[in-house]
């Protein structure tokens, strides 16, 4: 009796104890006490990512603005997003206004264009005072730093590989070469000892680009050749609107064209000049050793003369025909020799043996082969 009672009472007490015990449950903190954090860990401008906490913390965080930037706005009045290099200095944060991700594919907005000063005084000396040290002459830093470095590396690489050096001079679109500066004279003064091309590029206006060659190169080939090189470079430059890309593309194209220009000069020289001067630009003779790469990169610079092409085709066909005739002739000779019953050499003695006679014939056993040669009788007889 005692034992069940004890068991029941212990169960009741244990259950009551459980019910009476209070559990320590976590509590939600107030929003004001929550620790503020920035989504993205500061890799991107604050406010770029749509984060509520960051929105809240944004009001108290210092602004990040582009150095030297003005306050460009969208057509609806909202500020534009800036994805370029950021600096803590500056007035307001340009990334705050646009949090929708619009314009992510837009290139970095160039700083506000200020009126460029005329090339005069100290700036004139920077451009034309001394022979250039770098292949890219851009004292006003009109190109982006990264592109400038890329172009410099490319021009250095080109100068290592080619006899033609390329110097690129970048000036503003509103700037002009001073009248007192003669580029040809300057070129002669600076680059008289080496074959060099000076490309004077006007920012975002590739059509104003000027190419200055050595006089020796100019005299070696005809004007249409250089005009075509210029056209090809301008075509490449017109493929984009971004000034650094324009310079880069034009420099690459100029490098390609100069390679073939050198080949052309070596292969043709004065004779080609005389021929090209006599013909229009579209009838320029092709270099004798111009490979397919020439047609791929500069299909229009060295057009093959149509008559020469026709002659080469005719010569090829004639060669093939001659080979066929020769082969047929050899085959005929072989057939003729095989069919010719020419018996040469010394006497031929057969070993003797005595065959046994047949049909009582002493010398012949009746072996016979015959054929009819009557036109009306085509059948032939074989025993």
């Amino acid at each position, binding site marked *: 009796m005692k034992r069940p009672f004890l068991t029941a009472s212990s169960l009741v007490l244990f259950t009551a104890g459980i019910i009476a015990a209070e559990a320590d449950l976590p509590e939600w903190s107030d929003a004001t006490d929550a620790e503020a954090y920035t989504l993205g860990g500061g890799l991107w401008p604050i406010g770029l990512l749509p984060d509520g906490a960051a929105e809240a913390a944004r009001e108290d965080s210092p602004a990040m603005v582009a150095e030297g930037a003005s306050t460009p706005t969208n057509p609806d009045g909202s500020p534009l997003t800036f994805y370029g290099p950021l600096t803590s200095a500056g007035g307001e944060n340009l990334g705050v206004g646009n949090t929708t991700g619009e314009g992510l594919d837009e290139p970095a907005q160039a700083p506000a264009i200020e009126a460029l000063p005329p090339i005069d005084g100290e700036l004139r000396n920077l451009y034309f005072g001394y022979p250039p040290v770098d292949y890219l002459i851009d004292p006003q830093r009109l190109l982006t730093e990264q592109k400038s470095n890329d172009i410099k590396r490319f021009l250095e690489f080109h100068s290592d590989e080619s006899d033609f050096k390329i110097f690129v001079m970048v000036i503003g679109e509103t700037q002009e070469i001073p009248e007192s500066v003669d580029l040809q004279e300057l070129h002669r003064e600076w680059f008289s000892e080496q074959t060099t091309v000076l490309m004077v590029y006007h920012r975002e206006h590739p059509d104003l680009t000027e190419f200055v060659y050595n006089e020796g190169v100019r005299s070696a080939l005809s004007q249409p050749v250089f005009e075509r090189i210029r056209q090809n470079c301008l075509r490449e430059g017109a493929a984009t609107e971004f000034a650094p890309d324009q310079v880069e593309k034009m420099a690459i194209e100029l490098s390609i064209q100069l390679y073939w220009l050198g080949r052309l000069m070596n292969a043709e020289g004065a004779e080609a000049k005389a021929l090209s001067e006599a013909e229009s630009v579209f009838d320029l003779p092709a270099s004798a050793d111009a490979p397919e790469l020439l047609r791929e990169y500069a299909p229009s610079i060295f057009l093959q003369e149509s008559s020469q092409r026709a002659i080469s085709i005719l010569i090829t066909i004639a060669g093939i025909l001659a080979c066929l005739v020769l082969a047929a002739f050899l085959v005929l000779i072989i057939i003729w020799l095989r069919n010719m*019953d020419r*018996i040469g050499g010394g006497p031929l*003695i*057969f070993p003797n043996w005595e065959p046994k006679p047949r049909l009582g014939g002493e*010398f012949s056993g009746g072996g016979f082969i015959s*054929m*009819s040669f009557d036109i009306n009788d085509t059948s032939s007889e074989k025993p």
Partner: protein
Amino acid sequence: MRPVDHEAESCYSCGYSALKAAEKFGSNQVALSRVHDAAHWLRKQEKDVLNTAIDQLEVKFPQMLFCAYLGLLPENLKMSELGFWLLNHGQVKGAEYARPNENAILVILDMKTKQVGISLGYFAESLITQEDGYRALMKARPNLLNAEYGEAIETIFRRLCKVLEKRGKKLRKLSHEELQAQSKALNENTLDLPQHFAPMLGRWWRLRAV
């Protein structure tokens, strides 16, 4: 084709034999020239050219006898019979001892039936197959159709000489034992039976004629 052995007195197929040929043409010996133009179809120039060619061939093959017969055969005379009889009874003028009739290549032209045939002696038969002979005839067919009989005979001889030349080169490479084995193989194509009396009879006929 049924086998023909030396014991057979006559062909198993047609019953022809040397005795029957002798009954028909005679058992006497006949004199032949190398180019025997009984039909008088060849001009002298053609005959001379053909003789010159045969001279050359005979220099090359000192054992072989080249001869030709042109005639107008009667209807009851077959070319094969004539060839068989001529080779066994003919004596070619100018043929040396080294050129017996069994080494002969006889070209027969029947101008009446417009047929050409080649009869071969035993030795020549062992060197020239029927296919070779047929090819030689076929090669001369254009000349025959153009009635250039002299050239046709020359073409046949030259073609057969090419065959002989090839055959001779092959035989030259064989050793003595191999040659003996080949000779034995040629003879073994016939049945191994006792010697036929016909050759002896032929000699007897010749002696009687003389």
